[in-house]
Structures are given as structure tokens and as C-alpha cells.
């Protein structure tokens, strides 16, 4: 019913979509996979009307259509479920659901809040969410927000007579396992009414949910696989254009860490009120320690404590044997702690500053004589690390905001590694990266570990956590539930972890 024929899209210097054919039938769930930069997001934007194609046709039930903006696409039954951040947090749930479509509740210019609440409750029921529609969105959990997003798109059901096509963009990235299950069962149920396009970096989920899978590479659709024929390795091969290392998480490179060495970081019964309580662990050189838990289990707060952004209320933290008394980021950096934050674009790099400026941001003192920078040396350093990590950038002057996600992540890593940080905190380091970039990150983790760097990881997926770490601590509601040792070949199973998480 919905079809793209020969669609082309060019941006200055980039041929983003090369005569793409794409089709989705009634009630179908279509997966869309590809590395970053393969053209997935451009394709989605064309579908929901944010971009207009330069060539080719879009048809619905054989009729040609052209959308000038997302609004027009919506009027044709095409909706988009963004990642959870796309709700406006200062508005109520019902306002978010009907944002831009308030007119139906307006009589004589007045919004009838009662009617809107009633209608919102109906939408929320579709996604089995039982909350007050008048709740301010900022008070919801991430999973609830994701469902509200879905409920919002499902309002198309009442508005549009024809069929619905709903795009799901990385809907699971912040969800815990059981929340993902819930979402998927919901989506399957909803196929009675709508078709779905499902975009995710999590290959297992795509395979699980989709009827057919479009594989994109370099702006082209390189393969379309039916659910029953799908196989992770084959798809990844198509996406990356080469065989993907079977040892995805580089387990074979995992070496034992220095158990006897003095701990780099030591937590003794540390509590941060409202965030986590009574946490104790030691991080030793070469160790990859993974904190596992659901969103809000205290993982991030522990990382932020080590870096100095969070002051604990009780217990003792010491770094390299020295008790930490003052908690701020300057102290953290001085102690050799490097922090690779989850919000890469916001906290990791400074968009608007060049590659070399970003790399030395945390260590400007090393490249300055009494405050005057030695810019030549900065650039030399940047070039060395660009080579070492194979960062794809035309030169050291390139605005970091213009790099791809993987390369941005490499710049962030280079920033800390080049400064000699030997305690690295990784918060979702592979989030939103494609396979190739992920592999690079995994390689770097192993390398750092070999160099005797202590790493604390909050992983994007449980598999990643299991694959990478020497040690796993499972957290639940701010309390440590269980500690696992993960020597190669003797790793805990997914079930073991989930069991303690919830």
C-alpha cells in the first residue's frame, strides 16, 4: 500500500539516497537496518515528510503523493514514534498526545480539557498505560514516555480513514528487557490497524519483530530479507560489506586483570541519598567492571560520583589509595579519571569546536605555558590520535559536531587516553553506533585494559556487558544485588543477570 519508487535524495556533497525502492503492506512490520550513514534516517525523514525527495515517487495505494512537511504526512496516516526524548517535558501527557491537533477539543476558541483528558485516556488504553493524562511528562519513567509516544502516534487511528504506517525509531534503546517485550506484543497486536517500520541497532530485536527486513548500505537498499530467511551474520555481512568478527566482543582478547595490584578506585559502603546506597567495590588495573541494572538503578550516579559530579552522603571513596574528600570534576580529571558520557553530543564533544580543540579540552594545562597554548603541539597530538584510532576527519580543524557518531566517540576517547587517564568511565559507549564503530570501541576497551587502565562500564545491552567485562555488579533500586566474575568461557548468562535486575 505505501511505496517508494526510485527515490533519490542529494545533499550538498552527499548522495544520501540512491534510487531506493521501499514497500510496506497492510499490517506488515518491516525492519530497517544499516550502519550509521547508510541512509536510514534520511529514508525515514522522506517517509514522514521532513525531507522532500529529489527524484522518484511516493505512492499510497497507487496514488502519487508529495509531503511538504510532517503534518501533511500525518494527514495521510504516516506517523513517527521518536525516541523517548521527543516528548515535551513541561507539558502534560494529554497535551503531548494531541500536540498540534488540539483543534478537535476547541469550541469557540476554548480548549475543553475534560474532553481532551477523556480522549487521551482512550489512547493510553491502547498502549495499556494507566496514568493520569494530566500528569506532567517529566514525572514519567522513560518506558512510560516511550509508550506515550506510541499512544500519540496512534491518535492517527481516529483521525485518518485509510491505513496507518508508523515508524519506530530506536524505540527500545532505553527500555529494559521486559519493557521491550511489552512494547513488541503491543506492536504485534496493533498490526490489525497499522503497519510498522522498525528501526533499531539491536539486530536480535529486528529479527524478532519484523516480517521483512530492508538492509541499507551507502544510500542503497542492498537486500530485503524475509523473517524466516533472516540470519544475523548474513545481514551484518550485507550491512558492513565484510564478515563481522565472530568474536564480536573480543572475548579472546580478554586477559585477566591485575587482581593483586592496588585498586584504582575503591568504594566502601558509599551512599548517595536517593541515588544508590551502600555500594562497595574495588576497581583494579586492567579490569573492566560493568554496572548492570535498569534505568534509574544507580549505575550512572556511581559513575558520576567517581568523576566528581555527584557528592556521596556517606561512605568512603578513594582513588589510587587516596581518599577523595572534595567532589568536583576538576579533582576527578586530576586523579586521572576520564568520563565518556552517554549524551555524546551534549556532554562528550563541544560542537562548534575543532577536533584538536576537543581533544585537548580536558588537558589544556599540558599544552600551555602559563596559560598560553602551544597550538602546534595540540595539532600534532590530534594528528597522532586521528591516525591511531582511524578517526575519519578531513583535518584537525574539522568541527567536531560535523563528524559521525562513531568518530565523535573516538575523539572523546582520544581526549582522555591522550591525557593519560587510567580510570575510564564508559556510559553507554556504543549507543547509536553502527557495527563497525562498535567493533572499534570494543577493540579500544581491550587495548586500554591491556595497558592497565581500569574501566567501569555501563553497557548498552546485556550482551555487551557480559561480553566485555571481567566483573559485573548487578544493581537494583540503588542496591548491589549480586557480583559476577566473568572470565572468558565462564560468563553468566542473560538470564542470570535479568533474574537479579528485576
Amino acid at each position, binding site marked *: 500500500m505505501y511505496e517508494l519508487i526510485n527515490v533519490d535524495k542529494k545533499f550538498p556533497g552527499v548522495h544520501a539516497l540512491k534510487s531506493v525502492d521501499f514497500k510496506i503492506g497492510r499490517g506488515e512490520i518491516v525492519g530497517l537496518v544499516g550502519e550509521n550513514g547508510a541512509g536510514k534516517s534520511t529514508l525515514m525523514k522522506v517517509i514522514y515528510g*521532513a525531507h522532500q525527495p529529489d527524484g522518484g515517487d511516493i505512492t499510497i495505494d497507487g496514488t502519487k503523493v508529495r509531503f511538504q*512537511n*510532517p*503534518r501533511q504526512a*500525518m494527514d495521510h496516516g504516516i506517523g*513517527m514514534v*521518536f525516541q523517548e*526524548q*521527543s*516528548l*515535551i*517535558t*513541561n*507539558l502534560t501527557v494529554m*497535551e*503531548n498526545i494531541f*500536540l*498540534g*491537533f*488540539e*483543534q478537535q477539543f*476547541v469550541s469557540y*476558541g*476554548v*480548549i475543553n*480539557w475534560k474532553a481532551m483528558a477523556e480522549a487521551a485516556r482512550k489512547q493510553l488504553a491502547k498502549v495499556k498505560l494507566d496514568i493520569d493524562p494530566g500528569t506532567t511528562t517529566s514525572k514519567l519513567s522513560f518506558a512510560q514516555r516511550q509508550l506515550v509516544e506510541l499512544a*500519540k502516534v496512534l491518535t492517527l487511528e481516529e483521525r485518518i480513514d485509510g491505513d496507518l504506517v508508523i515508524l519506530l525509531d530506536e524505540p527500545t534503546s532505553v527500555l529494559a528487557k521486559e519493557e521491550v517485550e511489552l512494547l513488541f506484543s503491543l506492536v504485534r497486536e496493533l498490526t490489525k490497524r497499522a503497519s510498522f517500520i522498525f528501526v533499531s541497532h539491536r539486530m536480535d530485536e529486528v529479527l524478532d519483530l519484523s516480517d521483512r527486513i530492508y538492509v541499507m548500505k551507502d544510500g542503497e537498499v542492498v537486500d530485503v530479507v524475509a523473517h524466516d530467511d533472516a540470519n544475523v551474520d548474513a545481514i551484518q555481512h550485507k550491512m558492513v560489506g565484510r564478515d563481522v568478527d565472530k568474536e564480536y566482543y573480543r572475548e579472546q582478547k580478554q586477559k585477566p586483570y591485575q587482581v593483586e595490584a592496588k585498586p584504582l578506585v575503591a568504594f566502601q559502603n558509599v551512599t548517595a541519598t536517593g541515588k544508590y546506597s551502600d555500594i562497595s567495590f574495588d576497581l583494579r588495573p586492567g579490569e573492566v567492571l560493568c554496572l548492570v541494572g535498569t534505568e534509574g538503578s544507580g549505575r550512572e550516579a556511581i559513575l558520576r560520583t567517581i568523576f566528581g559530579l555527584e557528592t556521596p552522603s556517606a561512605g568512603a571513596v578513594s582513588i589510587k589509595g587516596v581518599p577523595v574528600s572534595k567532589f568536583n570534576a576538576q579533582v576527578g580529571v586530576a586523579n586521572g579519571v576520564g568520563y565518556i558520557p552517554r549524551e555524546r553530543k551534549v556532554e562528550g564533544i563541544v560542537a562548534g569546536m575543532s577536533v584538536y580543540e576537543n581533544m585537548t579540552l580536558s588537558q589544556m594545562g599540558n599544552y600551555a605555558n602559563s596559560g598560553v597554548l602551544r597550538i602546534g603541539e595540540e595539532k600534532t597530538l590530534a594528528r597522532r590520535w586521528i591516525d591511531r584510532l582511524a578517526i575519519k576527519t578531513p583535518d584537525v580543524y574539522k568541527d567536531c559536531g560535523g563528524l559521525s557518531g562513531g568518530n565523535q566517540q573516538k575523539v572523546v576517547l582520544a581526549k582522555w587516553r591522550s591525557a593519560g587517564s587510567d580510570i575510564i568511565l564508559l556510559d553507554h559507549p556504543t549507543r547509536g553506533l553502527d557495527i563497525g564503530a562498535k567493533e572499534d570501541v570494543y577493540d579500544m576497551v581491550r587495548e586500554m585494559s591491556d595497558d592497565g587502565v581500569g574501566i567501569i562500564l555501563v553497557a548498552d545491552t546485556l550482551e555487551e556487558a557480559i561480553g566485555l567485562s571481567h566483573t559485573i555488579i548487578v544493581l537494583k533500586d540503588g542496591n548491589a544485588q549480586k557480583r559476577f566474575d566473568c572470565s572468558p568461557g565462564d560468563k553468566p548468562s542473560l538470564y542470570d543477570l535479568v533474574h537479579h535486575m528485576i
Partner: protein
Amino acid sequence: MSNVLTRDVLIKWAPLIVLLVLVLFFTAMEPRFFSLRNFARIGISSAPALMVAIGVTFIIIMGSIDLSMEGTVSVCAVVFAFAFIALGGTLASWAWLAIPLALLVGGAIGLVNGLVHVLLKIPSFMASLAMGFVGTGFALLLTGGDRIRVEDDLFRSLLTERWFGFPIMCYVALLFLLIAWFIQSRTTLGRNFYAVGGGEELAHASGLNVNRVRIMGFALAGVFYAVGALLAVGRIGIAETATGSNFMFVSITSVVVGGTALWGGIGGVWNTLIGVLIVNVINNGMVVIGLPGYVQDGVLGILVIAAVVLSTDRKSVTFVK
């Protein structure tokens, strides 16, 4: 949970508490401060400022800023006065048409302001600053520097006629405050201001015509500036190029003191009412307790900082510029 709730409640009511503390303080220093007649005086000086501040509240909720109010107020006041006199010079004649005309002019200037900001993609700070110059300049061009007196007793009853101790202009201001509240809470446009302020890109992706909301916001603000201009003329019976002066900093300060955040999305017209009252109570109180003129600017500064500090939810703010 109850802990969080009380903090929320406290922050929500902080501006009002600040206002009450100020009133108590000035009353303690000078009991005559606490009298109906003085409150009426504070009401008179607050009424025009409140209208202007309400206008800019909508803009600030959107996360933008408007610095054009001084020019807009002057133009509206002057146009009103000219038209009023040309059409008969008393409300009992066709001259009442000058009132809708002034509102129209205010809206039109706001519209132009919004168009310059949105279509030329100039940040609102700069666009409105420049439009403010244009407005003041235009008012000067109209008057050639003269002042126009509006003597009509019927119109001036805004000031002279009192109900329950307060002059009519206070009730007019109250009426428009209610209208603003209605717009803010019960109309699509009002709610869309919050959406734009909470997340412009997200609002756009939800199919909201953000540019239209912005332009409408500036036009609406212009209408409220015009109301402010009418009350300002009603207060002193004179329309001139200087009618709008000093409104800019006072109105924005009032909005922020009332608890509406400059980064958008939070606050509203009731906050602005409290903010305007805080600023005017301070100004009135300082003279009433006999503070020397030369320290008043400094004291106002310190009190404003204190008021903003007390009414800011510091836990929700990571950084401030």
C-alpha cells in the same frame, strides 16, 4: 515523595511569599505603607507595567525575548491619542474607535517584529531590539517631539473613578490579566507557547507550525503592549514618545522575579502579576520608608537578586547564562 512535594509547592509559591515578606517588611518600617490608599497607588503604578509584562511573558515562555516594548508602547500611545482627538476627543463620540485602533496597531507592530525574527531568522533579542528603535523612532516621527494631551474626563475616569478604593484602570488590568490567563490555559495558542518553549524542535516534529506560533506570540504581545500604552496614557493624560521609556527592563525583571524562567517553558501570567507587584512594592516602599534616592537603584538590585534566588528551582537547573 512528600518531601519532594513540599519542595515543589514551596518553589511554586515562593514569589508570593517574597511579596508578602516585602509587604510585611515595609509595613514594619512604616505602618502607613499598609493602607488601602497606598495599595491603590501601587495598583496604579503597576497596571500599565503589568500589561506590558504579560505581553512579554508569552514571549519568554516560548524561550524567546522581546525588547521592542518601549517602541511599541510609544507608537500605540501616540496613535491612540491622535486618533482619539481627531475622532472627537471624548469616549462618548466616535473617538472610542481609537481604542481598538491602538490595539490593532500594537498587534501589527508585534506581527512585523515576529516576521522579522522568523522570516529573516534573526534571534529575537536582536530583531526586537532593532524593532524597538524603529518603534520609538516612528513615534518621534509622528509627534515631531510634541506631547498630545488626552483630557476627556470619561477616558480619564480610568484614573479618577474609583470602585472599592481602586481606580478603574486596576480593574481593566485585572480583566486583561484574566483574558491573558484564559489565553494561556484554555486556548491552543497559549498551550503552544509552552510547547515551543519546552522543545521547539520536538514541537515542530509533532506537526506544530512553530513559526506561526512564534509570529502569533509576538503579535499577541503587541496587543498587550497596546493595552499597557492605553493605561499609561490614562494614568498621566499625556501621550508622547517617552511614554514607553523604562518599560523594557522593568517588565522583563518583573517577569523573571515572578518565577517565569528566561529559558522558556515555565511560568505564566499569574507569576507575572506577582513579579510586577514585587517590583512596584519595592519601588513604592523604598520611597515610603524614606530611603535616600541615590541608594534606591542599588537596593532594588539586591532585592531583585534575592527574589529571583528564592523563587528559582535550583535543582531543575543545571546551568544558567
